[in-house]
């Protein structure tokens, strides 16, 4: 597979494990064991059982009739928003906590931006009776109070990251620092397809259930497994990696990644990494990164806290470079309008991250024959405050 990770942990020119020696043993332990553990029948059974009984998988592939009419195409929504805890993030946290148990780890740490990955981690830690600490930027804690309290109710200690700009990037830095200081008893559950190898590949594998299900569901629905388009939003890129994975070698399936343009790509307030980034190293991998000419990381901006990250996973950097995935972007306003539009046409209030994917529909040249799958990665409950504050509905 041209798009599979190689033995050195690279996707083409991107990936690798750029970590200080203090993290090497942890990451190496994981690298040596993750595939073997994931492939064990007992692991797969436990993972699949939890996805079915606890997460509520398979999630529906819903034919959105009124949205289809509007865009004059056949639009299906992959309803990851119906997963337990409200987003696709839990597919990965279930997988990683089962892995952590098998590695003999007793404690879990995680980073979170909007709080969805934090809640998904806190949830599986409660489920498995494991101690959990989640790092969250102090600013994000103020912006996303309900998710902070959800984590606390679940028994997780939420630690404010007070360095830098006090958002997701800084929470990730703090989680990595914690891991350096607690190398033996702790597993770090990274929430996206970022970080040093094997994280991007491991998280992609756990999220690949999304495209695995889409294939089966489309086959049952329309008699063939492949749509014309798969559309997903990209922050770090975990839901997109999952939605694209089983289509990467189906070259006639158009894959579309939607980044957050914020106030506009050239506004200086954006998170559209493929448009604005250059190759660089952050959080353990070589990838596309928003940075100054001196190599200092630029703070991104998006109305959606889940897309507010200065890099993208190395797989996506490779998919961008090879042209396998078409990257487009949606501004704050476009995404918010698309969110309201989905609410009014289908009765579904999407997460603002996922609303970016809906916003891309108007940017594609669709025909009435086209089958389009939009990965609806999360629900909008957590974003009510943002919708209310935006106000144009």
């Amino acid at each position: 597979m041209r798009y599979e990770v190689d033995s050195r942990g690279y996707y083409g020119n991107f990936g690798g494990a750029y970590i200080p020696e203090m993290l090497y043993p942890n990451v190496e332990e994981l690298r040596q064991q993750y595939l073997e553990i994931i492939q064990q029948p007992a692991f797969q059974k436990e993972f699949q059982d939890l996805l079915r009984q606890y997460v509520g998988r398979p999630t529906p592939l819903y034919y959105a009739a009124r949205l289809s009419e509007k865009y004059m195409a056949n639009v299906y929504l992959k309803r990851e928003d119906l997963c337990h805890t409200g987003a696709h993030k839990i597919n990965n946290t279930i997988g990683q906590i089962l892995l952590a148990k098998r590695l003999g780890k007793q404690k879990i740490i995680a980073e979170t931006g909007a709080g969805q990955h934090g809640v998904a981690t806190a949830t599986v830690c409660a489920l498995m009776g494991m101690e959990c600490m989640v790092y969250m930027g102090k600013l994000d804690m103020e912006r996303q109070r309900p998710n902070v309290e959800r984590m606390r109710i679940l028994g997780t200690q939420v630690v404010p990251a007070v360095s830098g700009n006090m958002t997701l990037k800084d929470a990730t830095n703090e989680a990595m620092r914690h891991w350096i200081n607690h190398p033996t008893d702790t597993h770090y559950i990274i929430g996206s397809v970022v970080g040093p190898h094997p994280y991007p590949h491991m998280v992609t594998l756990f999220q690949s259930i999304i495209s695995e299900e889409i294939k089966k569901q489309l086959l049952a629905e329309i008699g063939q497994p492949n749509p014309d388009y798969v559309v997903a939003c990209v922050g770090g890129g975990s839901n997109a990696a999952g939605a694209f994975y089983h289509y990467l070698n189906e070259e006639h399936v158009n894959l579309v990644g939607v980044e957050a343009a914020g106030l506009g790509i050239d506004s200086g307030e954006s998170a559209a990494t493929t448009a604005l980034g250059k190759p660089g190293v952050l959080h353990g991998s070589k990838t596309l990164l928003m940075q100054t000419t001196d190599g200092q990381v630029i703070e991104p901006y998006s109305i959606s806290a889940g897309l507010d990250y200065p890099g993208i996973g190395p797989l996506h950097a490779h998919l961008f470079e090879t042209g396998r995935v078409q990257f487009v972007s949606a501004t704050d306003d476009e995404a918010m309008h698309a969110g309201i539009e989905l609410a009014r046409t289908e009765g579904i209030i999407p997460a603002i991250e996922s609303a970016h994917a809906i916003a891309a529909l108007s940017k594609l040249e669709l025909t009435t024959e086209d089958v389009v799958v939009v990965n609806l990665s999360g629900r909008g409950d957590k974003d009510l405050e943002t919708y209310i504050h935006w106000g144009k509905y």
Partner: protein
Amino acid sequence: MKNRITELLSKTKKPVLSVFYTAGFPNLDDTEKIAIALEAAGADLIEIGIPFSDPVADGPTIQASNKKALDNGMSVALLLKQVAALRTKVKMPVILMGYLNPVMQYGFERFFKDAAFAGVDGLILPDLPLDEFAQYEALTTSLNLSVSFLISPTTSEARVRKIDAISTGFVYAVSASSTTGAKGQFTPEQIAYFNRLKSYNLKNPFLIGFGISNYTTYSQACAYGAGAIVGSSFIQQISESKNLEAAIQQFVLSLTTSK
């Protein structure tokens, strides 16, 4: 021409004191002043940190100095100019230490050449993977630049040997599984780790860094390694002082003499 670091470590009879500080901190043009004052105070080696926006291996003190230095306007290009200037005023070896991304953006080959030209003797790039460095090894060797890699208490013996083989000048022995930051004393486990390193008879001398902040930890580190590296406690000292030269002299004295 011999490399100044190799020369220092092969000739010296006593343990060496290496001091880490962040370029452009507390003020943009303090890089040179600090180097001169450190040499006058008796330091043997300096490690100048290239500031980065996301220093994941550092504790709060060095994080704060990185941020201040960047706010002051420090960059790789400016630092290389400052080093070229201070090189004519200090005799001791100068090492540049930093995270990979600013170096990558400057361009690896250009960085190695310009650093050597500015009079830099050695490099420490903690997040540069060993196998990525392989492609630049011939260049750094030809430029007479030493490149030191880190080991930590959890590094296996086989890997310590691999790191020793690829390192030149010295091996940087991180004293604990931790980020940078001042600590009061070493635990018996840390002492056992230093003894273990000693027993390996590595080709390079090793310097012990991280957590060294006072006479006790400094002298213990010197008892096992070829010397010790201090960073956070030094930066703390200079960030709170009005008189840089006096503070530096006092700091070196407090580290090297028992009360």
